[in-house]
C-alpha cells in the first residue's frame, strides 16, 4: 500500500483563480494510495518546499505528486526538494494544473474536475514509479579536433589551456586553413598571417596538443565520453624525426611546375614541398601524384640531396586508434570553383578569378608578392569588376542561402585594390550589401566614401571577351535602371561558400546530421549552436555554414568550453530515462527472443547484442538485445515496437503509462 503525498499549488492566483484547489486537495486525499494531501499558495517557494519535505519525513511518503505549473518549469525544483528529504527524486511527478488547466479553461466545475482527473492519473503513475538513479558513465579525458583551420587551432588551444589533452588532425600538410591564405582581414585590415602564425606555432609547441598533419578520421566508434577514433596517418614519405626542415630537397626537386593549392593555382610548387613558408610543421612532404619516383619509378633526387636521410619512399599509410572523450569538428568550407559559372567565363578567361585567388594576389606572401597583377599577362589591371553573390542566393544554381562573408571581403578586395593601384577603377555588382557586425557597415562606407569604390546594384548576366577586354554585361537597377556594360581588365567572382568535399561522408562516419548542402547540422539553431544531435560531438567554424573569422573563433571557443565542461567532470551523469531490456531467471534469461528488429528502430545505434553463455561450458545459450545506457537517449520507440514487451523505458514504463491512462478515465 503506497503512501503518496499530493501537494496542490495555487501559484498565487494563477491556478486558484479557475481551479478550486482546496477541493482538488480534498478529493486527492480520498484517492487510493494517497497518505497526505494539501494545498498551498506558492509550492515552489521556500516554505512551500519545506512543507513538502516535512510531509515526506512526517508521513514517510514513498511518492510525491505536485499539482502546479508545467514540469518544464519546476520539475527539477520539486525533485531536488524530495531528494533533500531522502525521497528518490524520480518518485516525484508534476500534475500540470496551470498551463494545461487553469490558464486554458474558464472557472467552473468542469475545470476543477479535470484538475482532479489529472492529479488522479499522475498519482496512479507515481504509485508505480520505481526509484531511479542517475546514470554514471566514465569519460576519457582527451578531445579530438578534426581540421586545423583557425577554428580547430582556437578550439585546440582553448581546451589545451584548460589542462585537457587534445589530438588535432589536419588532412593537409600544414595547419592554418583558409585563414593562412588570406591577405588582410576585415574590418581592421590587419595581416592575416601576422595574427595567425603565432597561434599555429603555439599549437605545435603546446605540451597538451598532439598534432597529426596529413591525417584523416577513418572511423569513429563508441559514444559520448567513450569514443574510439581510428586515424589514418597518410604517408608523407619524409621521416619528421630526421628531417630538419632545411628545404634543400624542395629546391632540388625536378618537378617544379605543379600548381600550388595554397596559391589557388596562381603559383607553382615542387613535388616535395612545404605549402608555404610559415607552415606548421615546417617540414616537407611528397605529393605522390606528381612525384617522378612514384609516377615513373625513378628520380630519388630529394633522397640524394637530403643531408639527414629523412626521405623514406616506400612507407605505407599508418593507422592509429585513440580513446576520445569529446570530438570537435572544424573541417571548414570551400568556395565554388570550375565551370559553375559558364556565363561568367570562369575557367575560359584567365583573368576571371575567385575571391580566394584575389586574396593570394593581394597577399605579400603570394605569387605576385602582393602586387595586383592579372594572371593572363601579369599586367596591372586598371579596371576591375567584382561580382558578389556568385552562386549564393541563387536557387537556380541550387544555393538559396547567403554566403555571408562575401559582401565584406568584396568590399575589402576593392579597398586593397584601390590602395595598391591608385589610378585603378573598381566596380562592385551587388544584390544587397549585408554588413551586419561590429564596425562592418562603417568598413563598407569607407570603401565607398574614402576609396571611391563604385557600387552598382544589379546582377551580371554574363562576362565575355572582346578585343582583349572582358565585357561585364549587367544591369543597374537603381536610378538609371538600365543595362550596363563595363570593359574590365580583371573580374573577381565572390563565389558561394560551400561545404567541403567529403563532408557528407565524414558526417556519416560520425553519425551526425547535415543539411541539404552538406553543412553539418547543429542540435538547435539557437540554443545549441555548437552541439550536434550526437552527444559528445561538437561543431565549430564554417563546417556549419559560411562564417567569418570572428564568428568562427567565437564558435570554436564555445565548442571548446562544451568539450572541456564534459571532460572536466569525473564521470558523465545522465538522466536515467533510458530503455532497458528485461532479464529474468534461467532458462529464459530474458523474454527477448533476439529478433533484433529493434536495431533498425533505434536512432542512436544503442541496441547491442549480448550473448548469454553457459557458466561452465561457455557455450552461447541465447543472444538477446542489450541497450547501451551511454547511447540511449530514451525516446522509447523500441519499447512500443517490441512484440514480446521485453523492452521497457524507465520513467515511462508500460505499467506506469497504462495506469495513468486507465486512471484518467475510470470514474
Amino acid at each position, binding site marked *: 500500500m503506497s503512501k503518496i503525498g499530493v501537494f496542490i499549488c495555487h501559484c498565487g492566483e494563477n491556478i486558484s483563480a479557475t481551479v478550486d484547489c482546496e477541493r482538488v486537495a480534498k478529493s486527492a486525499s480520498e484517492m487510493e494510495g494517497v497518505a497526505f494531501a494539501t494545498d498551498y499558495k506558492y509550492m515552489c517557494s521556500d516554505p512551500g518546499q519545506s512543507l513538502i519535505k516535512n510531509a515526506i519525513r512526517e508521513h514517510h511518503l514513498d511518492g510525491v505528486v505536485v499539482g502546479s505549473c508545467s514540469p518544464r518549469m519546476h520539475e527539477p525544483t520539486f525533485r531536488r526538494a524530495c531528494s533533500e528529504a531522502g525521497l528518490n527524486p524520480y518518485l516525484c511527478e508534476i500534475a500540470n494544473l496551470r498551463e494545461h488547466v487553469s490558464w486554458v479553461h474558464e472557472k467552473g466545475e468542469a475545470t476543477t474536475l479535470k484538475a482532479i482527473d489529472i492529479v488522479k492519473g499522475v498519482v496512479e503513475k507515481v504509485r508505480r514509479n520505481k526509484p531511479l538513479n542517475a546514470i554514471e558513465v566514465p569519460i576519457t579525458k582527451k578531445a579530438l579536433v578534426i581540421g586545423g583551420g583557425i577554428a580547430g587551432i582556437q578550439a585546440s588551444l582553448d581546451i589545451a589551456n584548460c589542462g585537457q589533452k587534445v589530438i588535432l588532425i589536419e588532412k593537409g600538410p600544414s595547419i592554418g586553413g583558409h585563414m593562412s591564405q588570406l591577405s588582410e582581414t576585415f574590418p581592421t585590415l590587419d595581416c592575416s598571417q601576422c595574427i595567425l602564425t603565432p597561434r599555429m606555432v603555439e599549437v605545435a609547441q603546446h605540451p597538451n596538443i598532439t598534432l597529426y598533419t596529413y591525417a584523416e578520421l577513418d572511423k569513429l566508434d563508441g559514444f559520448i565520453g567513450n569514443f574510439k577514433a581510428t586515424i589514418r596517418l597518410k604517408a608523407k614519405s619524409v621521416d619528421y624525426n630526421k628531417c630538419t626542415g632545411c628545404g634543400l630537397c624542395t629546391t632540388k626537386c625536378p618537378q617544379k611546375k605543379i600548381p600550388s593549392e595554397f596559391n589557388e593555382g596562381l603559383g607553382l610548387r615542387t613535388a616535395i614541398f612545404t605549402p608555404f613558408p610559415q607552415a606548421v610543421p615546417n617540414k616537407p612532404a611528397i605529393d605522390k601524384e606528381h612525384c617522378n619516383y612514384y609516377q615513373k619509378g625513378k628520380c630519388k633526387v630529394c633522397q640524394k640531396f637530403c643531408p639527414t636521410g629523412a626521405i623514406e619512399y616506400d612507407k605505407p599509410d599508418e593507422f592509429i586508434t585513440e580513446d576520445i572523450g569529446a570530438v570537435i569538428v572544424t573541417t571548414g568550407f570551400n568556395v565554388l570553383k570550375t565551370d559553375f559559372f559558364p556565363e561568367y567565363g570562369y575557367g575560359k578567361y584567365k583573368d576571371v578569378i575567385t575571391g580566394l585567388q584575389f586574396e593570394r594576389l593581394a597577399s605579400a606572401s603570394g605569387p605576385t608578392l602582393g602586387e595586383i597583377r592579372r594572371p593572363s599577362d601579369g599586367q596591372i589591371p586598371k579596371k576591375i569588376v567584382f561580382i558578389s553573390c556568385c552562386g549564393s542566393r541563387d536557387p537556380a544554381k541550387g544555393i538559396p542561402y547567403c554566403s555571408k562573408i562575401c559582401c565584406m571581403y568584396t568590399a575589402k578586395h576593392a579597398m586593397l585594390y584601390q590602395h595598391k593601384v591608385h589610378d585603378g577603377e573598381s566596380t562592385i555588382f551587388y544584390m544587397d550589401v549585408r554588413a551586419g557586425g561590429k564596425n562592418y557597415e562603417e568598413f563598407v562606407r569607407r570603401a565607398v566614401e574614402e576609396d571611391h569604390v563604385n557600387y552598382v546594384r544589379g546582377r551580371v548576366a554574363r562576362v565575355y571577351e572582346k578585343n582583349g577586354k572582358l565585357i561585364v554585361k549587367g544591369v543597374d537597377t537603381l536610378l538609371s535602371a538600365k543595362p550596363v556594360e563595363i570593359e574590365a581588365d580583371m573580374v573577381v567572382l565572390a563565389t558561394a561558400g560551400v561545404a567541403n568535399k567529403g563532408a557528407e561522408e565524414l558526417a556519416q562516419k560520425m553519425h551526425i546530421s547535415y543539411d541539404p548542402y552538406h553543412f553539418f547540422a547543429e542540435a538547435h539553431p539557437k540554443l545549441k549552436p555548437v552541439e550536434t544531435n550526437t552527444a559528445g560531438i561538437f561543431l565549430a567554424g564554417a563546417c556549419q555554414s559560411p562564417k567569418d573569422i570572428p564568428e568562427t573563433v567565437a564558435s570554436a571557443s564555445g565548442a571548446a568550453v562544451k568539450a572541456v565542461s564534459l571532460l572536466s567532470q569525473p564521470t558523465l551523469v545522465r538522466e536515467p530515462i533510458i530503455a532497458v531490456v528485461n532479464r529474468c531467471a534461467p532458462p*529464459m534469461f530474458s*523474454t527477448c527472443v*533476439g529478433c533484433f528488429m529493434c536495431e*533498425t528502430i533505434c536512432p542512436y545505434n544503442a541496441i547491442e547484442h549480448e550473448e548469454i553463455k553457459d557458466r561452465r561450458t561457455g557455450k552461447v545459450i541465447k543472444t538477446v538485445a542489450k541497450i547501451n545506457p551511454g547511447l540511449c537517449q530514451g525516446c522509447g520507440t523500441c519499447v512500443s515496437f517490441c*512484440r*514480446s514487451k521485453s523492452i521497457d523505458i524507465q520513467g515511462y514504463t508500460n505499467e506506469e503509462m*497504462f495506469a495513468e491512462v486507465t486512471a484518467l478515465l475510470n470514474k
Partner: protein
Amino acid sequence: MSKLSKDTAALLSEGTVKMIIGYEQGTERPRPAFCHTPEDCERLIFNDQCSNNLAVYLTKKEIIGEDKVGVVGNYYVVKTVIQLNLENQINLQNLVLMTVDGDDIITFGSIDEMQQYVDTHEPVPNEKVLAAIEKIDKMSRSERWEYWKSELSKCVRCYACRAACPLCYCNRCVTEVNCPQWIEPWASPLSNMEWQINRIMHMSGRCVGCGECAAACPLELPIGILTKKMGMDIKNTFGGWKDGSVLSTYNVNDKENFIK
C-alpha cells in the same frame, strides 16, 4: 521409391542431417512427417495438398534439438525461412531446405536462391479470402464492427492460431504479460479482438500469408482474412516491401492523409 524419398533418405544415411521434416499422407489430407531413418523417408510425399507451414518447427528446440535437419517444404516454408533468418531465429548452417518443383527437387544453397524462388513462384491468392475481404470492405463501418464482434466473440482463446504460426515464436507472448495486463487472459469479445489486433500488428510486414493461423482455428474463425488484408494494405501503401521489417524501418517520404 520416389526421387524425393531417395534423396532425403540419402541425406540421412550420409549423416548430413539427423532428421527430415516433410509431408506424409494423413487420414484426410497430408500432414507433417518427421523422418529419423532412411526407411521413414519412404512415407514422404509432396503435392498441392501439402499446406502445413513446416517452418514452425524450426524455432522449436524441443523438436529439432541442436542437430542439422532437412526440410522439404512448400513455397511458404521457403518464404518463412527467409524471414526467420532475417530475424536471427535460425542457423542456416543447421538447415537443408528443399522443395519440390514438378519432378525435380530443389535444394537451396543460399538466401538469395530462396528469395529468387519466392519471387518467381508466387502462388495464386486464395479466391475465397479475396472475396471475403471484398465483401467486408463493402460493408458499412458499423456492419464491419458487428461482423467482427460476433465472429470473434466465438473465440475460446486456445491460441491455436499462435501455435500454428511459424513467426509467433516469442518466448513470452504479449498475452502472457500481466503487469500491465495488456489483454485480459479470458475469452470475451473485446479482449479476443484485442488479441487479434495485437497478432496482426505483430505480423505486419512479416506475415508470409501461409494462412496456417486460420487453418488451425478450431472454430474456423475468419482470422486469415485479417493477416491477408493487412498484407495487401501494406503492399498498397509501401509498395512491394522485401525485408519484412515494415514497422521497424521508415521512409521520410511515407505518404499519409490523416495527420492534420
